[in-house]
């Protein structure tokens, strides 16, 4: 069917000519090129093994003690870790300048803290932006959704980009993930040794902190406890740096702490600080130095160990796995779930074992980590255990248990302004809990970095009643005369810090007298 008249033309020549003409005419007509360069978040995370030697790894965000221990443990593994200082108001201002509007203050504080550090490296230490980007990285835990905390990394990138550090690497490890993350060439080995080091550091920080908060309100000479703690810190850091067993250092620390003279007969209301994880954990401007303020106002602070948080994460994953096991899944899925449960149970046991071992070694007696199953059971009626985000049902559970076991005279729930799970849900539910348990004394406070005066005022308001309750506990114990006898005994016997009375009521002083009564030193009313 071919025509006789077939002629050939080079179509591409025509097309090329037309294209050139079209471009020329488009420019003449002021037509913008059709293709838009759409924005892409570059998300640099590449950190390789060969860069390790020249790379400083920045991190931070837990208590001062824990940050120091993590730094030491990581450096003991051959990294160059530097813990950022506890975020202050200046960090928050930087965070606000470069962060999104409407963020909660832990975001402003922690993101601002990193950017502030880098700005200081650049402006005060004279490092070029390139050097900073090439030689520093920041690492933090990810996957903490669904509250804003899980979305922090986005904020880090935005703030870094806007502050002129585009390309700075923020490397994440998945806090819900397994113990072997990343590949063999990764600069940071998120492996068993790494996580073992991290968890040990966290637990060590917890036991030291718990000891400190138990002792400080009762020290006879102001500053003794902090001086002793500093010595303990140095001992432990030395062991962590050399990657050696810390138990001997803890035994040594116990001796140091035991030598601090205490008077546990002072009536100090006990205040449980619960709430949003970061707000209740930080010890700086992020919560108006809440713990120090409470101690200054004459209270004993019952802090929440970070280990509880880890146990909660393990509990949540186990809970979900158990729920899945109740469904009709394939046997392979079921097998995977059983394996997961077994591993988690193992991890939990190890954590508890470490905690108890360290606690015993340093003399943290009669301290019990929260029983996650019991906490979940107690709170479920008020706060569905399947609701996640932030502390989940834990806040509600802790308040209930505070009443159930007479743990404290005041439960102070601290959270950032507008905290989604805490201000937006827990506090609403606590209204019902306090209704059901009228003996609960509960105060929720929001932090925003400013307005400290108002926050302090509210706490003082609540402490008034807490003091009354504490005094009532004391009044119920024994006669004044008996208390004096106990005081005399304690002074002569020099009871060490590791001696801690068994829990009977929230007041340590009353418990001390009870303990003496049990020993037959004093008689009942």
């Amino acid at each position, binding site marked *: 069917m071919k025509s006789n008249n077939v002629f050939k033309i080079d179509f591409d020549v025509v097309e090329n000519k037309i294209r050139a003409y079209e471009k020329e005419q488009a420019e003449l007509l002021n037509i913008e090129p059709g293709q838009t360069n759409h924005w892409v978040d570059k998300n640099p995370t590449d950190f390789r093994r060969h860069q390790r030697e020249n790379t400083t790894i920045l991190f931070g965000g837990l208590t001062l003690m824990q940050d120091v221990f993590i730094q030491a443990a990581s450096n003991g593994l051959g990294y160059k870790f530097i813990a950022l200082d506890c975020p202050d108001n200046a960090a928050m201002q930087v965070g606000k300048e470069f962060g999104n*509007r*409407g963020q909660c203050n832990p975001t402003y504080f922690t993101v601002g803290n990193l950017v502030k550090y880098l700005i200081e490296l650049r402006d005060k230490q004279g490092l070029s932006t390139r050097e900073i980007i090439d030689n520093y990285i920041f690492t933090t835990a990810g996957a903490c959704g669904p*509250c804003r905390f899980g979305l922090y990394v986005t904020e880090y990138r935005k703030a870094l980009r806007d502050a002129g550090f585009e390309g700075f690497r923020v490397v994440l490890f998945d806090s819900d993930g397994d113990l072997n993350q990343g590949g063999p060439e990764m600069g940071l080995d998120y492996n068993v040794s790494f996580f073992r080091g991290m968890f040990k550091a966290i637990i060590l920080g917890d036991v030291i902190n718990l000891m400190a908060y138990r002792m400080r309100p009762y020290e006879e000479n102001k500053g003794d406890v902090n001086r002793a703690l500093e010595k303990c810190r140095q001992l432990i850091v030395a062991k962590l740096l050399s990657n050696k067993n810390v138990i001997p250092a803890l035994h040594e620390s116990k001796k140091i702490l035991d030598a601090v003279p205490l008077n546990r007969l002072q009536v100090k209301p006990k205040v449980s600080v619960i709430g949003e994880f970061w707000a209740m954990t930080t010890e700086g401007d992020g919560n108006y130095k809440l713990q120090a303020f409470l101690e200054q106002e004459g209270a004993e602070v019952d802090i929440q160990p970070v280990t509880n948080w880890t146990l909660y994460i393990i509990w949540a994953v186990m809970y979900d796995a158990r729920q899945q096991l109740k469904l009709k899944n394939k046997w392979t899925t079921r097998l995977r779930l059983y394996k997961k449960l077994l591993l988690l149970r193992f991890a939990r046991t190890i954590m508890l074992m470490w905690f108890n071992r360290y606690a015993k070694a340093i003399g943290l007696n009669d301290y019990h980590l929260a029983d996650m199953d019991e906490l979940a059971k107690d709170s479920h009626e008020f706060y569905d255990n399947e609701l996640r985000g932030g502390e989940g049902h834990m806040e509600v559970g802790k308040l209930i248990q505070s009443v159930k076991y007479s743990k404290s005279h005041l439960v102070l729930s601290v959270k950032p302004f507008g905290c989604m799970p805490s201000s937006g849900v827990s506090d609403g539910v606590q209204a019902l809990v306090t209704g059901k348990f009228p003996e609960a004394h509960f105060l929720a406070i929001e932090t925003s970095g400013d307005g400290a005066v108002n926050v302090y005022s509210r706490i003082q308001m609540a402490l008034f009643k807490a003091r009354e309750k504490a005094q009532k506990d004391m009044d119920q114990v024994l006669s004044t005369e008996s208390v004096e006898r106990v005081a005399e005994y304690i002074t002569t016997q020099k009871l060490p810090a590791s001696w801690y009375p068994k829990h009977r009521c929230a007041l340590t002083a009353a418990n001390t007298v009870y303990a003496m009564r049990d020993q037959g030193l004093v008689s009942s009313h």
Partner: protein
Amino acid sequence: MNTSRFIGIDVGSTTVKCVVVDPDEMKIIWSRYERHETRQAEKLLELLTDIHQTYPDLKTNKVKAYITGSGAGPLIDVVGAGFVQEVNAVALAVESLHPDVNSIIELGGQDAKIILFKENKDSGERQIITSMNDKCASGTGATIDKCVLKVGINRDKLTTLDFDAKKIHHVAAKCGVFAETDIVNLIKSGIPASEVLCSLADAIVMQNLSVLTRGNTLTEKVLLLGGPNTYLPFLQQCWQQRIPETWRERGYQAAEGVNPEDLIIVPDNAEYYAAFGSVVFGSAELSADKTYKGVDSLAEFIKNGRKSELNAGADQGLHKEIAELDAFKENYKTPLFKPRQYPAGSVIKAYIGLDGGSTSSKAVLIDEQGELICKQYQLSKGNPIEDTKELLAALKNYALEQNCQLQVLGFGATGYAADVLEKSTRCDVNVVETVAHMMSAKISCGDDVDVICDIGGQDIKVLFLQHGQIKNFRLSNQCSAGNGMLLQSMADQFGVKVEEFSAVAFSAELSPKFSYGCAVFLDTDRVNFQKEGFSKEELFAGLARVLPKNVWQYVVQIPRMSELGRKFVLQGGTQYNLAAVKAQVDYIKERVPDAEVIVHPHCGEAGAMGAAVEARRVVEQRGYSTFIGIDETINLKVSSRTDEETRCNFCENNCSRTFIDTESPDGEISRYIAGFSCEKGTVESKEAVVTLNQKRKQLKAEFPNLVDYEANRVFRRLPADKVSNDKKCKQDVMSMSLMKTMLAVIGGTKHKAQKEQIRLMRKKVRVGIPRVLNHYTNAPFMRAYLEGLGLLSNNIVFSDQTSEEMWLEGGKYGSIDPCYPAKVSLAHVHHLLYKKHKRKALDVIWFPCITKIQSFTSEMVASTSCPVVAGTPKVVNAAFTKEKNFFKENDIAYYDRALDFTDRKLLEKQLSETWGDILQLDKDENIMACENAWLAMETVDLDLQRRGLEVLTQAEKNNTVVLLMLGRPYHNDPGLNHEILEEFQSLGYPVISIRSIPKDSGYLSRFFKDDIEKGLIKDAFDIADVWPENYSVNSVQKVWAAKFAARHPNVAVLDLSSFKCGHDAPSYGIIDQIISSSKTPYMAMHDIDANKPGGSIKIRVKTYAYTLERYQELLNERLKQTNELEKRVKKKRIELLQQHIKNFDDVLMSEDSNKWIKIDEQYQRYLQESADKRDLIQKKVVDINARDEVEVEFKRKDFNIEKENNQSALLGQQLAGSQTDNSVEVKKGANANEK
């Protein structure tokens, strides 16, 4: 007794109170209170000196002093007083003086407190429950003070004003700034002062009752304390009216036969309660014991002590060196303006521009060339028409004083007052402030202006220009408003004239660091800094320094300022304050070193000038002016009324409206209606409403609003054939295992009667579901699930859409203050309980905690719903069961069991656990009901997408703009989106929702293909390229939709977020980056809350409408240019083809004169796959040239279509490399046809 006297001191935010108490009788024997005018220490010294003079024998060591109040902090040690927290102090005083009081409400200058005494039923103890407002609701007393100033009512009248609940207008009392914004709007709408103040009182009372009580009932007797409660009778009356209303609602039995005035009381000498209470407390509390130091210590502190204690972290002053300051002053001194002088007897032909701002009104005259002749300024006196009359009279006088005649050629108005002036003076233009400012800046500072920053009394407006047009804009929201006013009120508080502010501020060597943000927070900071001892000079400097942070970091939120351009113009009355200008200039230049920062030569009148310029343009274009005339305006008679007759009864809101009638000298009356909340309020008769509705329907048909459609569609039942899906259910039964089927049959026979009973029972069960939160996504599922189980569709009842009325009625039970979508859920459940249930009884209220939501997006880290949204059902449960169980009382079960919509098996289990008991479910029917429900979801999705496709296709065809609402699903609720979308719909823009964007991969391929090819994303629904931490489904969907909008030329964006939305916050920056890269028109409202900020919405809508108009023009221009280009290319193509064909012309011409061009199909496909050639092919196919039609068949050798389909870029290279093969055969038409 050792102590001879107790002194009680209360240092509040505005006053200092002192009492001397006799320790034996515990009675006040001396008292005095004074306003401290921010000099707390000095005032206390004065009072203590007075005490010592009154009691000369008073020995310091025999005195015990106790101090309380928000300002006490720095004075505790100085005075040697024991500190007592003020709420405790007040509670103790009341317990001692009024043992029969159960509730206390104290409104202070900055704080509001509620104290409740409740008996613990178990222990019999009297417990105290206290609550203070959170930081976002502070400033109550201060707010009242500021509003009283704005309203311009004198103090005497204030104390005789009575509360009138019939004349209440909407005021948001959530925070001081919100309230002020609303108050300004009411004043500018001409609402009488008394009504404005009653509305404010009502709003404050309702706010406290709904939030501060934390869901508790205020039981009698109620004590009202604090300055405002003591001195404002209308506020007392408001409490006395509203509190008993809550008693009735909650079934609380107050003492019978007693007047509310006797149950809700204001005691005498209430101002001393805190001071007295501190003594009561302190006298019993050893830890508060301190050694009283007398007056000397305080005097020393005032003289020397404070400075040394100042925060070492304070900033420097506004300048480093004097020379730098001098140079600045020289550069930025306000140019001297002299009104133009005319020879006597001249006729001054001029246009008037008037800007009715929030705090001041300005008017200008410009000549026919647009040059300024004269300007007038005055602080607003309350009524916009009166202000206008006075300003115009001043303009007229300007002419008369020169013995000249003023001939007004046109009149343009802008600002808050423009709407009312449009009606009453028939002005030529009512131009939105942003546009007026842009025009003015361009006229005065040139067309090449990049950024205009206007700081008025209330608002901050920042405009970004490109080619002399508004490219983008940012306006202060409610949380960043009131900055200009703050500087002014600060100057007032320190007794400094506002003109002298800068001189005072420049004299400071250091400045405290204010936290930037809301004006209420700034004022709180100011109080704190003052307590620390900063001087007024330093405070002024600090405030000036925080201003640019508020503008650029809080309002604009673009840290990379250099991207905005380099020519910045500062406008607005605040720029007369050189301290503010210096701070701005320093801030900008630090970030954009080569910036040119210009202050508009008439910065205060810039808006008025813009209005005049626009009036000139319009009048010249139209040829005449509509303005009633200057004399007629000056002589306008104004009357306004708000009564039952003016109330709007056209919907359930029953808005209280104000009719403002203006009568011109010729007797013509024009009416302006203020105070309505929806369009229906704009008319007066039923006929007019009918016409309005008809227009509305027409508009809806022409410009669909799919957000509104979706909001209704998801809650409607589906046609039976779509949901029941009996066939599928039967198939499911068939597919059951044999054993199971047999068991079912046996069971069926055995329990047939029982099953019939269950079926009948289910038909009777009535379920109420609140129309809130993620039910806007999953309602089709919930409805279809229940219907699938045999519930009658009429028995599945949703609460109504959110309305203000519903919120006011049902929002008072909450104990927390989260985002509005969450807290309004209380009102919805209340609505189900007390409206729907009362009409016909409900058995269950179903409000599940939805923990995870399904999503069309892919590659997500997790699929969670927001934690507040998920947990709200629990909060609602707490609120309605706390004091008493309202569910139980109404015989309703409340189901809130958690549901996970991402795991179908788990969901089935959760649903079975929810409904298993009450509906006696068996497993299989549960599964079937779930499947039905998923089908219903699919049906709704497809319907919405089909409609979305229609709208988008139509827009592409007509080259018009479509508005996409980026919001969470519940922003579809008109009660939550403040009906902003309808405003745009009425302007002729169709609106689509995220859900209605077609999700067909084929359709989306044209937008996302490039990104997939580049490996940035895995498919069209992946957003990992812009947001790897994509946990939150609703935010992720917003980001995805922003990506879609960025790639679709016809789509503009309206981004809505609720105040306190924590999940949207991280997406702001991402969406901003996506949208600004693509230059898509964009407007954001990120702080949507319960109150509808009418004024703010109006400016935004008008400004965005202006931007959209410009964008439409751009689209038209683009199309025109593209068509032109197409035409030129077509012509060129023919020329080129003809050049080739010419060689064979003889052959072609001789063999077939009827020639046409046809392109081989295969080659067409190749071209279509190649993006850069696609347009060309379309053009060629359409029509080459009727006269010169030639059929050309292109045949390509080695042409591999599949390869090209996969990688057209690679193909291009291949083609380039095989030029020799790229030949086409040109054949005769006849032969081609044969083929």
